[in-house]
């Protein structure tokens, strides 16, 4: 037993160090920093939060970002669901493995490189406009880059895989016989999807939505590189406070607000679906 105790502490100490030093304490510090004035005085103040509510640019960007993140999550679901269903139920596992590889490659290449790829594609002199002009379909380039359109493309591109995989996992446990039975009894495709496939994959849809929402609302590269002047993303306000104006305490308040909105949304999604956070990972 003594020996078992020793092993336990041997395992516990590094884990405690990791969680206390790099997860818990930094977030406690984020919380306290957000209530301190930037002057460096050792007092507590609500000033940083008041600025957020008084200055329209901050709270409107916050609402705008949240609304767009919900919209992109919905879009990611619509785009991804048919792909997940196709990979699990329509084609053979061998072909599915090949397509899965093609899905994973952009993920491992990383967000920055793929977003840069969209800069090349969508610009006024980009590959898409040049090709369309070359083919005689259009005469003058269509403005796509540095708009909300290009920003949404980027956000969708970097996040949709995280919708596809959880949905695929739940679809794998759906018995084909159930679909066949429904079809034999005269159910239309629409009814089968609505009454069998979607309800069965609901846990995967919720998990995917949580991860996509978190990635999108916390993203910086897609709005910053692909978005236009009007595509203000809340993370950009945090970056500005930390890296341009050096008002770290103001930035901490913004960061804490972002943490609250993302946690609250995740919590609401879990409550609505009756799931636990522990399950999201799978």
């Amino acid at each position, binding site marked *: 037993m003594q020996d078992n105790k020793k092993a336990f502490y041997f395992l516990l100490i590094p884990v405690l160090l990791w969680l206390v030093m790099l997860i818990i304490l930094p977030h406690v510090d984020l919380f306290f920093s957000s209530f301190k004035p930037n002057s460096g005085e050792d007092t507590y103040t609500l000033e940083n939060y008041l600025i957020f509510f008084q200055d329209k640019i901050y709270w409107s960007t916050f609402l705008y970002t949240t609304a767009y993140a919900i919209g992109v999550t919905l879009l990611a679901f619509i785009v991804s669901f048919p792909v997940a269903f196709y990979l699990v139920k329509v084609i053979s596992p061998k072909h599915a493995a090949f397509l899965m590889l*093609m899905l994973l490659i952009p993920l491992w290449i*990383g967000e920055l490189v793929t977003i840069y790829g969209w800069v090349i594609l969508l610009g006024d002199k980009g*590959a898409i406009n040049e090709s369309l002009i070359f083919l005689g379909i259009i005469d003058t380039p269509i403005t796509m880059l540095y708009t909300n359109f290009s920003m949404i493309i980027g956000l969708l591109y970097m996040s949709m895989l995280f919708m596809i995989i959880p949905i695929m996992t739940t679809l794998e446990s759906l018995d084909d016989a159930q*679909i066949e039975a429904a079809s034999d009894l005269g159910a239309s495709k629409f009814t089968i999807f609505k009454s069998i496939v979607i309800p069965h994959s609901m846990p995967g849809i919720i998990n995917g939505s949580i991860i996509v929402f978190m*990635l999108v609302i916390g993203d910086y590269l897609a709005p910053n590189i692909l978005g236009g002047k009007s595509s203000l993303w809340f993370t950009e306000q945090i970056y500005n406070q930390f890296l341009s104006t050096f008002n770290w305490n103001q930035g901490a308040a913004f960061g804490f607000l972002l*943490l609250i909105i993302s946690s609250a949304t995740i919590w609401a999604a879990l409550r609505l679906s009756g799931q636990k956070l522990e399950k999201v990972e799978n």
Partner: protein
Amino acid sequence: MIQSLPNSPVYKYGYRLYIALFFAFLLLPLIAISVLAFNDTTSITLPWKGFTLDWFFADTTARKGLFSDADLLQSIWISLQTAFLMAGLSTVVGTIAALLFEQYNFRFKNLLYFFAIAPLVIPGVILGISILLGSTYVGGILDTKFGIDLEIFGPGFWLVVLGQFSFGATYVMLLVAARLKKFDFALEEAALSLKASRLESIWYITIPFLKPAIIGAFVVAFLMSFANFNTTIFLIGSDPTLPVDLYSRIKFSSTPVLNAVSFMIILIITIVATASVFIKKKK
């Protein structure tokens, strides 16, 4: 819809068309980069002006290729070092965390587990600023109260490694725990009954069983570190990692050398990913 059921041709071919469009969408940026890395012009995009390897090898004032751009090579080198250390640290602590949470029951276990998986749902930006604030605070106290000025608490190479490790360990833990769930504890009990200590049985029995998952998790952590921007940007000192360097080039000075670097990344990742699939198949 599924293979065993009849489908109308419109449904069947419509569906296939959608899937084809989806994968075109997925691969289009990668193809564009790969082609334009060899374009003989100083613009990053079309029109096509002929084939050249200048963006890899040239060393003139107008054209500086990837392999003669000292700044770029330096940031790649920094990224490789960071990724190696971050993956090593994440693999050790993540594996330990998996063993701890899978094999022991203790007070506050659920609370600790909650913090261990929290990085999955905390945006990378928040992790970055929190760790910056936390380390600056601790560094400040050490400096003013004890007169100890430790470089590790300021933005720089080591803070980047630690910052990325904070979420890297989470992913390693989950990947290793998934394999640990399939482990037969009778094996460990056998070792224990043969007078092995608890730690010996972990080292000689459990770890070898987990080896494939541990290696896989190391690669995953390495790639995550190499591509990370959101957390890293707040923690770097004077030496940028590759994503930070590429970001400032995209914003301020785009040349086709960006295509060349991106092409190299695409090439290496594609080879590694394809190889890993084939290795898995052979097993």
